Each structure stands twice: as C-alpha cells, then as structure tokens.
C-alpha cells in the first residue's frame, strides 16, 4: 500500500524545528511520575477478582467431592469416611474429610473448583490476593488441608531485603 506522508514544509526541512518539538517532549517526560513498582519494597494490592493462592475452610466443607470432579486436571485428592454423629438429638450419618490435598504446582488457577462448590460461602476459593507462591522445592507446592487453611500463617521460607514480611491482604469475599 502506498502511504502518503505529509510533505515537510520549507521551514521544517531547513530550520529543524521538529527537533525542538522532540526535545520538548523528552524534557516533559523527565519530570513525569514513573509507573515502575520497585517490587520487594513496593507492592500493589491485586484487584478483587484476582485469582491468587487457594484458601480452604474445613468447617464449611461438606465433603461432596464436586470440586474434585470439576477439576479439569484432577489435582484435588479427597478421602472421606462416614461417621455416626448426634445432630439436633438424632443420630445422623455424616461424611468426614480425611484428606483434602491440592497439587498446586500443576494448578492453572482456572477457579472451576470454586464455581463447583455448593456451600455458601464457598469452602474453596482463590481470591486471596496472595501471589508470592515461589518455593525452592517443587514438592513444597503440594498442600494438604491444614496447609491450605492456614496458608497465610505458614513459616516464611524466603527472606526479604527489609526483613519485613509481606502484608497479605484478607480475602475478597
């Protein structure tokens, strides 16, 4: 395609005033605030819809295994046994969770497990705004249910330059 550029006028060709325009632009750019975030010292809080690390709630979970069914790569492992318990004066058969593990290293954070969860509020959810998931060992990313529930109180494996622990924001929902 033939592109037609505006023909430079005589004054543009000879006096090079456009060069001054360029200099003016860079000069103004020099004083503008920069958008760079100096990461370990500065952090941005993710948006509310941000999908971060899992949180799990043992109390809310009804052990229905719907999340494990919904998971497209089957990384949620659930073991359940039945137990007779007294609820409101009657003997009832209840499902009790033995094992609720997530292999986070393979997770793609699609959040389908959260959508499948029938409890209200959800007993598995991803909107924790926690994104610092790096570990030195890949097996550290296999979480059991205690780890999933108390993930935010885990002992810090990496040290930050300032020595301060990252401020982890509470969940969105």
């Amino acid at each position: 395609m033939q592109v037609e550029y505006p023909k430079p006028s005589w004054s543009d060709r000879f006096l090079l005033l456009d060069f001054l325009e360029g200099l003016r632009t860079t000069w103004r750019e020099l004083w503008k605030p920069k958008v760079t975030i100096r990461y370990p010292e500065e952090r941005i809080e993710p948006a509310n819809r941000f999908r971060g690390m899992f949180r799990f709630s043992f109390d809310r979970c009804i052990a229905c295994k719907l999340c494990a069914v919904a998971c497209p790569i089957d990384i949620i492992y659930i073991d359940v046994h039945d137990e007779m318990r007294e609820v409101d004066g009657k003997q009832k058969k209840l499902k009790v969770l033995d094992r609720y593990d997530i292999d986070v290293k393979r997770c793609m954070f699609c959040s389908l497990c959260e959508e499948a969860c029938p409890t209200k509020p959800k007993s598995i959810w991803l909107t924790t705004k926690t994104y610092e998931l790096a570990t030195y060992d890949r097996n550290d990313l296999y979480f059991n249910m205690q780890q999933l529930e108390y993930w935010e109180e885990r002992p810090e494996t990496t040290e930050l330059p300032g020595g301060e622990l990252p401020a982890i924001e509470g969940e969105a929902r």
Partner: protein
Amino acid sequence: MSPLFLKYLVWPLVKFLIAFLIVQVIVAAMNWVERRTLGLMQARLGPNRVGWKGLLQIVADPIKFILKEDIVPSSSEKVAYFLGPMLPLIPAFLVFCLIPFGPPPTYIAARVNVALLLILALTSTGVYGIILGGWASNNKYSLMGGLRSAAQMVSYEVPFGLSIVGVLMLSGSFDLVKIVRYQETNAWNFLAQIVACFIFLVAMNAENNRTPFDLPEAESELVAGYHTEYSAMKFAFFMLAEYSAMLVNCCLMVSLFFGGWTLGMFGVGLTTDVLRSWGLWGGLLGCAIFTAKVMAFMMMYVWFRATFPRFRFDQLMDLGWKWMIPLALGNIFVTGIIVLAGQERLLYWFGGGAIVLTAFYLFRPRPKVVHASRVSEA
C-alpha cells in the same frame, strides 16, 4: 629548584593533575548521570539500587570493569589491539592542560597562543585508536564500525573547524583566554554566531559518535561497532576516552560560544576583572561557573540521546556535506563582511531575533490534547 623550572614544569604539571583528577571524577559520574537521566526520560527509573539513588554505581562500575576477565581474540593483531583503547585516551587527556577553567593565569595549566589549533589537532587524532581497534579485532563488525567512524570524523571535522572561523574573526585570536575576554566585553558568541553555534553543536555530537550520529557503534547493525571484541578495562578505556572527548568538546563549546568562566556581557556582570578582585574565591567561583556550563552541555548530550533516533549513513553524509559545510561557509562569508564593515551589532540582533522567534515557536499556544485512554475518565 630554579624559579623557571617551577614556573614552566612543576606548576603546570600540578594544575594539569588536579584538572585531570576532576575530569576523571566527572567522567565516572557522567556514567551514572547519563543512565539515570536517560531512564527518567524513557519513563523508567534507571540504576537506583546501589547506594543512595544509585549513586554508588559510579564506584561499582569501575570495580566491575577491573574484575572482569580480559579476553583477547586469538586471531587479533596483538600490538594494535592493545594500542586501540590507549590511543584515544592520550589526546583526550592532554587537551585539558590547554583549556582555561577559570581566570588566567592561575586556572590554566599551559597558556598557548594557538591553543584552539592545538586542541583541534589533538582531538582529531582520537579516531586513530578507534580505527586501529576496529581493524585489529579481526571482526567484520568492528572493522565496519572503525571505517564508519573514520568517514564520519572526516566529514564532520570540516564543519567543526569552519564553524570556529567566525569566532576567530570576531575575537582575532586562537588563544582561548583572549576569546573569552572578548566575549565578556562584547556579547557571548552564541548571540553573534548563532548559526556557527548550531553547527558546532551538531558537529560535536557527530565527532563524539553520540546518538543521532552513533553509527560506529550502532547496536542494531554492528553489535557494538569498533569495541565489539573489547572487554573489561580495555572497553572501559574506550568509554573513558569517549566521555573525556565529550567533556573536551563541551569545554570548547563553553569557551568559544558561552563566555567561559565569566557570567557577564558588555563588560557588566561577573567579568574576569570582578572575579580577580575577589582573589581566591573569585577564581574558584569562575571555575564553578565554567563547570556548571560544561555540565549543562553534558546534559544536552544525554538529552539528545534520549530524543533523537539514529541517522542512516547516507543521511549523515548528506547532513554533513550538503547542509553543514555550505551553512558554515555562508556563515563565514556573512560574518566576514559584517566584521569588515565594523557592524558587529547586526550579528547580535540577528542572533537575539532567532532565539526569540524560536522561543515563540516553542511556547506558542496550542490545543490541549487529551490522550485517548483519559477520555473515559474525564
């Protein structure tokens, strides 16, 4: 020690060493200043990790250069390869003993009555190191860089020299001290020689292989040009030579066109006599004024680098031969006639008018442009 020995050898040497050390510090600091300013102009932060605001980068870089492995290509021409980085250093440092940093005779190492000629002769030998280094590396990119540098140096040495002629005609001397003294009694030469000043500015960018004209080290075409094969301290020497040459040209610019160490025109303001009457402090103030002006022009180099894209080689040659040289010759012609007629004031009016018109053009009222992404917010 005889007084003659003291006067002609010891004191000049001491002065030169002091100037040399200050220059080294400035050159090292320029590395940080340039990277940081460039970053800020390109919407990022630049080096800010080492020390306060990244200031210790000045120390960290030389340490890194010294500790790095010094690789010599096995197929290189050994002697020339070693000479390459050394040769441009010598003229770049030597020139500093000819430049008056403050009111003479104290603040100049060696006052020579043809100082300007000597400086021009010395600085133009700097390109030998680049050619030699480029050739000795036995690398096609290095050789191309060296050749380009040579061609560029030859074409821009001409307008560089011609732009000075007008100043010489006005002041009637090759002595930098006399040129500065002329400027304090009359107007600074950038007023009288605005065209020459512009040509000098462009030519000095080209001479130093700085960004609109940095074809010898064009990263996108030649890897790194003439210093592709150089590492560690040898590379640092090339950098040192480049920044020293920049500093020399800035000193020349200030001395020739911007009144050197003085801060006054038409005999009013901080002239040499005023500074001398204040003794030591006056002299140091003169040096400070000179340094401030020089640093302003060093920042100009950085500013240009942040702004202008690189020329193509034929565009570079076009600009040099078709525009700069005729313009410089025309400037000599006009200046010559006006000097013969004894009407220097005409030149001041012309220069002042040009500056005012440019300022009007730059600060003209213009419609406020709202960026497309901001429209929804407003």
